[in-house]
């Protein structure tokens, strides 16, 4: 029971971040029919831009994290992420969408992903970095851990879960209630139709590219001080989002968000749960969900995903 609660909460915290990546992937797919392979790395770019402004490339101490400088760093990071995402869309996705060239946007976005990884790796040469904590969670409970029903849970986990839920619901509200959101739904429904009735499709889709990156980045930064950050951080988060989005076949963004939450809990369970002396262990944590989703899509594809007959 203790372990179950611990797994659930830490899993939901990780899953909340995955979920926002998954929702971003699925929204982009539904808007354009493409998958942004650079999504995770674009967010990684934002995270490391934040880190650069906050603490340079030296090993990080807690100092400086509470000052207004953090807000400045966050703003710079968000601007980098949004700008690079929009540039990716206008430079490497939109031209190939018009031409109907799949290989163009696939190769283009993957190229952006690897270019960002190479750049981050060149500037931040240590194998991993600690992200400074803007919120004083280490003062809550016992060194940042609180006891619930006998379980020791990171206080940050609750904050991350709450933030992820707030961001997900906020985005859902944005999609449902605002002019921008309605226009995006119209584009997802029928891009050509939306264009004809006067929606500035390219502008809005480019904005959506940047916004999903910004939203995912906020959650990733909230969760980042909990672990080590490296050039792989963004890539792996994007990958988890892709796994969750693929599990629901790029369905509605809220489904994808839910799938991300489930993925987080499953990963935590794989790493920690003992079943009668039998335990999978952390080694399986990364591998099994990817393998499962891959087999699922290969053996049992949904009708909508099949190459269209006519």
């Amino acid at each position, binding site marked *: 029971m203790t372990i179950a609660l611990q797994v659930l909460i830490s899993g939901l915290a990780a899953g909340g971040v995955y979920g926002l990546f998954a929702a971003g992937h699925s929204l982009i797919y539904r808007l354009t029919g493409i998958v942004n392979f650079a999504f995770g790395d674009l967010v990684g770019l934002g995270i490391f831009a934040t880190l650069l402004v906050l603490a340079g490339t030296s090993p990080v101490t807690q100092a400086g994290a509470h000052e207004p400088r953090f807000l400045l760093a966050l703003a710079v990071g968000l601007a980098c992420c949004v700008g690079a995402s929009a540039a990716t869309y206008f430079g490497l996705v939109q031209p190939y969408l018009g031409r109907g060239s*799949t290989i*163009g946007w696939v*190769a*283009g976005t*993957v*190229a952006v992903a690897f270019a960002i990884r*190479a750049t981050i790796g060149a500037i931040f040469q240590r194998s991993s970095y600690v992200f400074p904590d803007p919120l004083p969670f280490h003062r809550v409970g016992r060194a940042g851990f609180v006891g619930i029903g006998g379980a020791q849970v990171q206080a940050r986990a609750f904050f991350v879960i709450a933030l992820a839920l707030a961001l997900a619901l906020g985005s859902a509200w944005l999609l449902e209630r605002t002019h921008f959101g309605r226009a995006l739904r119209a584009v997802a429904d029928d891009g050509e139709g939306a264009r004809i009735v006067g929606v500035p499709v390219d502008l809005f889709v480019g904005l959506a590219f940047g916004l999903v990156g910004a939203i995912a980045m906020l959650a990733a930064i909230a969760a980042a001080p909990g672990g080590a950050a490296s050039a792989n951080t963004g890539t792996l988060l994007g990958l988890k989002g892709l796994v969750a989005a693929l599990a629901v076949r790029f369905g509605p963004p809220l489904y994808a968000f839910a799938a991300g939450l489930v993925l987080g809990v499953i990963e935590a369970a794989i790493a920690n749960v003992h079943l009668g002396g039998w335990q999978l262990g952390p080694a399986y944590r990364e*591998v099994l969900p990817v393998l499962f989703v891959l087999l699922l899509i*290969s053996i049992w594809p949904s009708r909508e995903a099949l190459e269209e*007959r006519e």
Partner: protein
Amino acid sequence: MTAAALARTTGAELRRAAGEARGAWSPAAWVAVAALALGLLVPFLGLPGLRMDALASTVYLAVAATGLGLTVGAAGLPSLGAGAFVAIGAFTSALLMARAGWPLEPAALCGALAALAAGLVSGGVVRLRPAFVAVSTWLLAWLVWLFLFAFPSVSGGSQGLIVPERTLLGLSATPTVHYEAALVLLALSLLAIAAVRHGAFGLELSGLRQHPPLATSLGVPLARRRLGAFAASAAIAGLAGGLSVQLAAVADPAAYDPFLSFKLLVAVLLGGAAATLGPAVGIAALGLIGLVSDPLARLLQLPLERFDTAVAAVLLVFVLALGGDGIIPWLSPWLPRFRRRKPQVTLCYKAGEPAGTKSVLKVEGLTKAFGGVVALDGLSLELAPGETAALVGPNGSGKTTALRLISGAMQPDGGRVLFGGRDLTEAPTRERVRLGIARTLQTTSAFAELTALENVLVGRSVRRHYAGGIRTALATPRARAEEPAARAAALHALAVVGLDRQADVPIPELTSSQRRLVGLAAALATEPHVLLVDEPAAGVGADELEPLARVLAEIGRQGVAVLLVEHNLRLVRLAAERMIVLAAGEVVAEGSVAETGESELVRQAYLGAHRL
């Protein structure tokens, strides 16, 4: 058959094959042989500063890229997972050599088999839209890498697996021996893939790439053909990985990260996915760029540990921005044209015998609803051999839905499709086409990158028996014997629609009504007993209606039952004898064109105030 007789026939066959090869020997073949010979001599030229091990591993990489060319170029699948198959081959081979003490050759073959198995299991994704193929193969690349890092007991962890010394084909496996073996392997895989791409298999892959619905409507098996290409690429990559890992002497997980997959894809696109030679040229270009860029990075003291990552990414963006054709297609206008001689048509086409005089197609109570909207509500009809019936009705009355249900592109909610007394309601499209139900698509659809004759040849898919990938790659006697017959049949089908003179004209140079006729000829080439024609007159000028009607009449004279869905009542009157009128998914009138066309009911349901 006795051994002596077998030896005699085999000998005769070999002599014939050798004769054919002499006949087909072209300047291009001489150039290729000279290039190969020169390549084999490189280690003995004593070139200064040549690192044999780096050269050999580059050639192995070119083998893997050449294999990927089949998936990306011929099949048009954006695979981001080629490196995963190299890794699977490498680690299978390395484990067998290091832990079980196997020799190199069987270990590398097992590596290829392991990659083939992985390709077959993950290959289910080839049925999906390209975006899903890209995502799944990307996940595969990461999965293999994550696995290697999570399980150091398998991969040797950050140290990697130490691979012991081995012999290759009886010689101590030095870098030079590896290089020669890799070059021969590259030549063999280039030959095999060129044969596949020029053969029936490649034609069908090309059709599936350009227009999946059209190709499947002609009976081309989408999943089987694409899976064949995908799995073959995987096996070739696995073999290259399994051999090269011994050359490297260590299987290091870090060398098989997803960047390897990306690098292979970049090579394919850089060299030109459309050409068989493209991927190998791409690898060579990347290698040359690496020779220049690495010292440059050191000179400028750039802190880029993996400079080639950034270079490859920038290069790719550059290639894509220029149109994405790659090196070989750019060069081709300047290269002398080594044109292949067209095989001569030697056989005469015989039309299939029409079956009896009773009804050949019978449809009973076909029903289909989309959501709450009933598109077709209990359609029943019969067609006799050689009869032309028209299915008419206003937009949305269910005509095209009826054709899709009969052809198997869609499953009905209720009712049956009987063909020659056999229930085909559940049968897949390919089976129906094979038995004799063909359909043309509503839109002007043809494979835009092929000539008229090649378009029609795609329609021969169900009549070929030896068109599988392995037979095509090896050019077995039966696969070769089948080719002239297929061309003759395709030419005959083109002659029926009056386009035999335009056989070698590329589709973009034909008029839109000619393209429609090509589509009709492709359907005819499947040798149907029942032909379902969807709006052949859409977009056809008034003066072209009579020739079209004559073509349809000629098809009917050959004993083919034609079901014509058409808006243009002039064509209906010219071509059809019988008329079935649909409104809101139900048959409202049926009878001869002369009588039914004039009835008040039809006028109200279909024509409104206009007179026929």
